[in-house]
């Protein structure tokens, strides 16, 4: 191959230059076949670095470019656009990552330099096989799917719909609202949670552009940015929203009463058929079949008998829909850490140990106690209350991360309990973390009002009294690290502030939508700083606590950001299809069909007439499964073709003398 390859070695200040002997790499690279020019530069991404590239391509007639710098995720686009300015096809530029993958992780400068030489040689060998590509452009379906009907999903759906574009909002439960609907007040202003949430829920319900699918889950996703096909399963509610007039007779007549582990977090009861909660949207009851007498014994049907509009449908089956959308926002929220896992704190063992969500419901004026703070007996007001922070957070046995909101909601509980009962409240904390507007002030106010703060991780909560004063109380045993002593604090009520954790199905969800999870199991964003709502799967965005613990304000901000990105893409009207897609060589495919059922994106079809397999480019996600599987070697992956990969390996194995160690 008679090529003119330009190689640019970026020092990235001391990031690369301080570790790798860039000049030695340059000297080595000069000896490689086809290399016309090698340059070292302080910051290739700077304007002057780019200009150098543009001028060299023009002045030296370069037809291939290798930039050895940082991760291609950061500046591949920068360098490719520079090539375009010089009239070179962008796909003839390849970025070799010598920073994150070499300089930052190397044990020694020597090792890093040797490795950088091999890596750059590999990229030089590969770049010779790069082909000019003009990526396909496809129009964007302006409809958007929002998964999750909590505050994040509601906010995102409203923003997009208000711009005049259609939204499908899919919610697993019977009503919109999510966790926020369970909160009595929000910190730090102690503003009524329902009062700020319900207007938005109502707006969703009445927005003509939003199709609300409750009781629904996404089954499968195919396609890519611009054109996704989503299969949605809607589980039976057993009550027709069209016929139901919301009279509530069914709930009244239903003879089966069960503990409401949903909205009321186990604190109150509900019927087998019930309204999710007072402001539920849609305001239609749901029949929980696992609780229903008819479904367990075959008898009852009282709800059906008494319903004045014939809305009860006990035979309703699940419904499947195929939805076409251009983009997807995932806003599936979080789960609360099960405090019973820390058995020594006694949740589930001692009646008067409560979880934070139970406390939220207890504080709610429309909750099971009507807003009264009482012990589990439902009558007695506590005189002394312990609030244990960081239950499952900042704990290597469970979650090492900080759940971010627990400090503030714990302080909120403390304040409300003190105001409502006059009880003494003890906060057991490791550190109090109250960033955010008005939060530190809230903390100070509480201190001034007489809230107690004991710094130390609680060892255990017990009923075993050691002294007469402890008799009949729960005793919180803790090392008070401020005074360096073990203390035993007798209280009447303990509130645990559990961690926010990823939903149990986060991994399956990620797999379904082509995303990945971070070490803690939350969905991974494309970049923590500069791309917090996009993901590595273009067209799929994330918002709210599915990405990590955050408060309502941050969640709403993320939802807005995601909606903004969606609208930007809709406004552009078309998307460029990533050329990393598989193609089948129709002239050489033998039609063995081995690839046919292996594709995770269902992108492969069989042409019975020509007896060959075909790939629907739009559906291909570029995973490479079929490439590995094709026994005839006729499937190639754009940007990862067989000759490119083999050349890269040969380049990698090249010794300093220029021989290849493996004659492939």
């Amino acid at each position, binding site marked *: 191959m008679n090529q003119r390859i330009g190689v640019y070695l970026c020092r990235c200040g001391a990031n690369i230059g301080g570790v790798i002997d860039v000049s030695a790499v340059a000297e080595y690279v000069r000896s490689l076949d086809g290399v016309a020019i090698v340059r070292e530069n302080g910051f290739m991404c700077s304007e002057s670095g780019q200009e150098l590239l543009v001028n060299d391509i023009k002045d030296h007639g370069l037809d291939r470019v290798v930039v050895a710098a940082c991760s291609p995720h950061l500046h591949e686009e920068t360098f490719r656009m520079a090539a375009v300015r010089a009239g070179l096809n962008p796909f003839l530029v390849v970025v070799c990552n010598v920073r994150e993958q070499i300089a930052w992780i190397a044990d020694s400068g020597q090792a890093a330099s040797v490795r950088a030489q091999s890596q750059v040689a590999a990229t030089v060998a590969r770049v010779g096989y790069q082909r000019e590509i003009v990526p396909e452009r496809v129009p964007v379906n302006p409809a958007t799917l929002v998964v999750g009907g909590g505050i994040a999903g509601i906010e995102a759906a409203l923003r997009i719909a208000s711009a005049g574009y259609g939204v499908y909002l899919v919610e697993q439960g019977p009503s919109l609202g999510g966790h926020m609907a369970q909160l009595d007040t929000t910190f730090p202003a102690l503003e009524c949670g329902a009062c700020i949430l319900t207007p938005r829920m109502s707006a969703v319900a009445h927005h003509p552009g939003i199709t609300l699918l409750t009781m629904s889950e996404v089954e499968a996703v195919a396609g890519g940015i611009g054109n996704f096909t989503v299969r949605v399963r809607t589980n039976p509610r057993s009550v027709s929203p069209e016929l139901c007039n919301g009279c509530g007779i069914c709930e009244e007549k239903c003879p089966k009463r069960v503990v409401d582990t949903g909205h009321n977090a186990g604190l109150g009861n509900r019927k087998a058929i019930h309204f999710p909660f007072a402001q539920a949207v849609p305001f239609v009851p749901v029949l929980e079949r696992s609780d229903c007498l008819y479904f367990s014994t075959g008898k009852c049907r009282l709800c059906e008998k008494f319903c004045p509009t014939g809305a009860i449908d006990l035979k309703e089956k699940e419904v499947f829909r195929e939805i076409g959308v251009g983009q997807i926002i995932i806003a599936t929220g979080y789960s609360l850490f099960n405090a019973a896992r820390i058995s020594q704190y006694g949740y589930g063992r001692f009646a008067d140990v409560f979880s934070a969500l139970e406390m939220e419901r207890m504080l709610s004026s429309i909750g099971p106690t009507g807003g009264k703070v009482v012990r589990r007996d439902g009558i007695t007001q506590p005189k002394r209350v312990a609030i244990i922070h960081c239950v499952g957070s900042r704990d290597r046995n469970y979650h090492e991360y900080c759940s971010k909101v627990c400090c503030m909601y714990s302080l909120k509980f403390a304040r409300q309990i003190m105001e409502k009962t006059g009880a003494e409240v003890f906060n057991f904390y490791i550190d109090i973390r109250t960033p955010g507007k008005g939060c530190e002030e809230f903390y100070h106010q509480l201190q001034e009002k007489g809230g107690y703060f004991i710094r130390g991780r609680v060892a255990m909560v017990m009923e075993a009294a050691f002294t007469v004063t402890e008799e009949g109380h729960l005793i919180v045993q803790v090392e008070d690290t401020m005074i360096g002593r073990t203390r035993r604090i007798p209280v009447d009520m303990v509130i645990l502030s559990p961690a926010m954790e990823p939903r149990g199905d986060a991994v399956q969800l990620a797999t379904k939508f082509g995303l990945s999870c971070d070490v803690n199991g939350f969905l991974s964003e494309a970049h923590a700083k500069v791309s917090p709502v996009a993901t590595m799967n273009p067209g799929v965005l994330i918002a709210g606590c599915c990405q990590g613990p955050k408060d309502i304000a941050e969640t709403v901000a993320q939802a807005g950001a995601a909606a903004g990105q969606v609208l930007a893409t809709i406004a552009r009207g078309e998307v460029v299809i990533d050329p990393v897609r598989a193609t089948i060589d129709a002239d050489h495919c*033998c039609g063995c069909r*081995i690839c046919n059922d292996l594709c995770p994106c269902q992108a492969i079809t069989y042409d019975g007439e020509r*007896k060959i397999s075909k790939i629907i480019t739009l559906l291909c996600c570029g995973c490479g499964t079929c490439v590995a599987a094709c026994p005839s070697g006729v499937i190639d992956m754009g940007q990862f073709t067989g000759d490119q990969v083999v050349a890269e390996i040969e380049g990698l194995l090249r010794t300093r003398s220029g021989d290849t160690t493996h004659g492939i």
Partner: protein
Amino acid sequence: MKPKFAMYWASGCGGCEISLLEIHDQILRFAEVFEIVFCPCLVDGKKEDLAKLGDGAIDLTFFNGAIRNQEDEDMARLLRTKSRILVAYGSCAMEGCVPGLSNLSTAADHFEAVYLKNHTTVNPEAVIPGSRSEVAEGILSLPVFAASVRSLDQVVAVDYLVPGCPPEGVQVEKVIETFVGGSPLPPSGSLLGAGERALCEECPRVRNVRRPTRFYRAHQQIPEEGVCLLEQGFICLGPATRSGCGARCPRNNMVCIGCYGPPPGVDDQGAQMIAALGSMLDPGKDCDGEVERTQRLDELFSGIVDPAGTFYTFSLAKSMLGGKVGR
């Protein structure tokens, strides 16, 4: 003057010579067209006679058999010099074929197995043939046994390749037609007498896109008629083998063992097939999770008897892995 034709049989079974006769009455036309100057199987002729010919004196040479010893290599070089067109004819010359499987062992191992440990060989003095032996009558010489088997094109430049073990009669006819038909010759290095896709294109069996859950050997199960053997769990190399034979084996309920070599664009037939099986094998519904699936697949693959003989019967000598395939 008729164009001159030669055919030589190096390390091989002789089936390739016979395959030339599979063109039936066309052999008469062949004899009319060519003057057969050298072909130990058909006409009398010695190496010395060949050496006397001028360089390039032979117009077309079909060389079959692999390069096993010095004699094979000498003949390959000699015929290369004397021939205008040298064709690697048949699987042995093209890619090493069955003799190539001997690359899994060293020459010393072979000698030990054949001359010392063979139960039917009486060799009390443990004599191993050498290239030079002094006997009472004088000095005897034998060709030196090479360290490994090579294909013809690993020794000399080859103009065309004809796959098959042996090449099919209909394809042999087409190959000959290429040279006598008067059309311009295909570019040097071309593969003649075969299809451009994998074998499945010629196979009449139906593929239902089922994934095999285990492997069967031929004696373990009677295959369902008319249904793809691979999806029934028989390791059929058809999809990783070049078409051209007409899928004779699968038509007769036998798996393709890959004698036509890899299809175009495939470097390593065995590795390609193993990768395909790894992708298509269904570890079963009860295999939850990556670890369990991997374990199950490991079990299934380690249960394959003679992987080298299954996936590399023909292509080992020329495969990317060479002798590095485990037995």
